[in-house]
């Protein structure tokens, strides 16, 4: 646990990170400015009509989804890392697939399936009588389950990565000292993977409170949805800014708490003797149980919605929905997402590196600044970027650049969440050894640090690519003319209730996301990971 404590003069890297952070908080500051200069009457009107309900809805939804994803994510990660069962290799990447399914798609599929008069309810009523009702997808429990099914892979992937990199020697020492398996789990394993759990849950909660697509389709009133409603029904954005202010404050409180927990549990791999856990072979009953559980979760989160999309797509293609324009939408989506992911990795690197290697108050503050963007709901981030650009660099307005800035602002935290643990995994000692052996700073970075953090960064790139591909509100508001993406197509068709016509674009988003996801969970990637650690 030895960390270097030296006084560093401000380096050029530090300046870069400071300037980046300043740009990243600029839109947030604009929103805060508008909110805080609002007339008191607007505040009191919102307090008496909307705010208490919205706060309660948002917080209870975030808590419900976090709890559900915690149970799903950790249990599935544990099963796939520690048990051997038929089809394990397939299931372990299949469980990451829901990340490729946008929440609004999942929401509209379930609104159709479970909704009033939908196929499931009709089936239920033929068994239980005509007055039988099912769980409504628009209820609190319904919304919670749908959002959890879509977001649990965040927890699953991060916890799985942590479990794979976990040195089994720690557990063996505990067992050798006579500690029971359960106590070992609670006292040794879980604390070791706690940073991964915390990072995963942070992603989930931030995702839930800033989600727009699903809650709007399910008519569940959260702060972000209310911001969008205020924005699209008002010419001035005071009320939207006030609600955004609450969101940002909520996110900051949460992020600071999460970070505080994580600071207290930083672990380094101190010895070179890494060994991975051997897998238990589950018995017949265990195998049946595990398979049943995995199939259930996978089916609900991906299998059934994907089957619906395929069926609808076939119907839509039969109606001639695929035309030449479609190729353009595919190109726009891939192009924008790749560009945003590259940009965000470049911008995030100095922030994450400095905060993890020289955690001075200033560097940590710069990193936190980058996180604020995620809690700025998509539409508000978009509007703030739009106004800033038209004020200061109008010539760039209406170009892809504006949209990219909004994407990076919005999704950089997703990347940082996996860039940071990657950097934390690298013992500062390793770099210091390289320096002692005569490597320059730059050479150390290139030969030692970058190879060690490569996997974390690939994961960051992939996650940001996926998120951008699915993004809706900012794309709607900022896309240049003639620059519709697949997500926009889904939205334009689905919001007019042309579910079949929305399906081909939705299916394509899923398909385009698949190679990136495969990269994330491929065996090759994992094998190198171990090589690096050992």
């Amino acid at each position, binding site marked *: 646990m030895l960390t270097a404590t030296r006084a560093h003069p401000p380096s050029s890297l530090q300046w870069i990170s400071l300037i980046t952070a300043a740009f990243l908080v600029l839109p947030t500051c604009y929103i805060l400015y508008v909110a805080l200069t609002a007339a008191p009457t607007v505040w009191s009107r919102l307090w008496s009509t909307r705010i208490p309900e919205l706060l309660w809805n948002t917080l209870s939804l975030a808590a419900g989804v976090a709890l559900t994803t915690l149970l799903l994510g950790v249990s599935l990660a544990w099963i796939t890392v520690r048990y051997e069962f038929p089809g394990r290799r397939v299931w372990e990447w299949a469980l990451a697939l829901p990340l490729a399914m946008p929440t609004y798609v999942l929401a509209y599929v379930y609104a159709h399936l479970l909704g009033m*008069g939908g196929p499931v309810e009709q089936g239920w009523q033929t068994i239980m009588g005509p007055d039988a009702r099912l769980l409504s997808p628009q209820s609190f429990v319904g919304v919670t389950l749908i959002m959890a099914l879509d977001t649990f892979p965040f927890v699953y992937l991060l916890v799985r990565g942590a479990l794979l990199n976990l040195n089994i020697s720690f557990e063996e020492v505990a067992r050798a000292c006579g500690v029971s398996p359960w106590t070992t789990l609670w006292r040794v394993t879980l604390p070791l993977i706690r940073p991964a759990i915390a990072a995963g849950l942070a992603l989930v909660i931030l995702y839930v409170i800033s989600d727009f697509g699903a809650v709007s389709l399910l008519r569940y009133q959260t702060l972000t949805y209310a911001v969008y409603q205020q924005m699209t029904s008002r010419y001035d954005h005071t009320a939207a800014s006030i609600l955004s202010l609450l969101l940002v404050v909520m996110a900051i409180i949460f992020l600071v708490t999460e970070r505080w927990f994580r600071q207290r549990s930083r672990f380094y791999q101190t010895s070179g003797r890494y060994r991975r856990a051997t897998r238990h072979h589950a018995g017949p009953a265990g195998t049946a149980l595990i398979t049943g559980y995995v199939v259930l979760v996978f089916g609900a989160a991906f299998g059934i919605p994907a089957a619906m999309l395929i069926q609808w797509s076939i119907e839509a293609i039969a109606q001639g929905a695929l035309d030449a324009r479609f190729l353009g939408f595919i190109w726009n989506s891939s192009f924008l997402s790749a560009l945003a992911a590259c940009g965000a990795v470049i911008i995030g690197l100095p922030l994450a590196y400095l905060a993890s290697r020289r955690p001075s108050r200033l560097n940590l503050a710069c990193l936190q600044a980058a996180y604020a963007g995620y809690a700025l709901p998509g539409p508000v981030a978009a509007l703030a970027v739009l106004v800033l650009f038209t004020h200061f660099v109008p*010539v760039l307005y209406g170009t892809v650049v504006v949209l990219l800035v909004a994407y990076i602002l919005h999704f950089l935290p997703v990347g940082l969440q996996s860039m940071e643990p990657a950097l934390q995994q690298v013992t500062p000692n390793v770099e210091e050894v390289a320096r002692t052996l005569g490597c320059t700073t730059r050479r150390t970075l290139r030969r030692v640090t970058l190879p060690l953090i490569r996997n974390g960064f690939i994961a960051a790139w992939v996650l940001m690519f996926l998120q951008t591909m699915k993004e809706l509100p900012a794309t709607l508001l900022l896309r240049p003319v003639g620059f519709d993406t697949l997500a926009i197509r889904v939205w334009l068709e689905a919001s007019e209730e042309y579910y079949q016509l929305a399906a081909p674009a939705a299916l394509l988003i899923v398909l385009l996301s698949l190679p990136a996801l495969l990269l994330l969970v491929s065996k090759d990637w994992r094998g190198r990971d171990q090589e690096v650690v050992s």
Partner: protein
Amino acid sequence: MASSCRTFLALTLFLGALTLSQWATGTAEAAEKLVVYSGRAERLIKPVLDEFQAKSGIQIELLSSGTTELVNRLQAEGDHTPADVFLTNDAGSLEHARELKLLRPMNMREVERAIPSQFRATDNSWVGLSGRFWIVVYNTNLVKPDQIKSLFDLAQPQWKDKIAVPNSGSEYLQAGVSVIKATFGDERTKQFLQGLKANAGTQVYQKSSQIVDAVAKGQVAAGIVNHYYVYRHLATQPTAPIAAVMTDQQEGGMGAIMNVTGIGVTRASKHVESAKLLIEFLVAQAGQKMFADLDKEYPLHPDVKADPSLIDRRTFRAAQVPLARLAELREATLTLIEQVGLR
């Protein structure tokens, strides 16, 4: 390892170069191109624009989005806006855009001949193209035809948990409430909205098509929508148990609430002549017929007949509130809606 870094950098540079080239081609724009910002569903406008493109050779670039969003966007873009034409579903929003000086006053004889003056801005900076009405859609299994005559009936306690309403963000709800407010004053409107709120409960929808769907399924007994959603639903599901009431036609009643879809040329447009050609095309008889029929709306040109499946325009009257007033009424309407706490 170093090679993967190089790959990443090469990818980034490549994408960056592409962006720049795209931007460069974007600024060197073709002469015969019109950028249309449309607050109307793409499906309902694209066929007409395609027809215009085929006839005139002028290429149309369409950006579809929410009405208020587009007004905000036009305002934020100011003189730099790429938009030449703004087309949307709500006269209040068009009038507001005019007040913000986003639209250009026009002097077009074809327009003045084709469209009656109550459906245009005073300076012709926007021109109405088609009309729609608020109606009450009801489930014929749950409601008897004479049970609902007026919008105010829906606020009666007997409809508790039985009606569906649009969310307060929809421009057509705001415009409708403005008309009621201008006709009956604040107090009565407030009571009406409170009744609606209590009766709708959580049945507040983002989209009118969802309201019609909920009524057809019997999830609710009745709902407030624009008339064409009913015909659109019936076109795909002819056996759906739904019917429409043109409300408030009784003696001394308010009349049906009307709104128009309209078009205006932006002040910053550099293609005014092309934009004029588009407007001429849309107000001419053939354009009127095509535009209105696509969405089952009422054409505004007095000589053009509406789709025969619609309720005959001569059999009902519209509320007497000038469309241009919708903009000035809006802010107070929003405050009222918020005071009542509609979602």
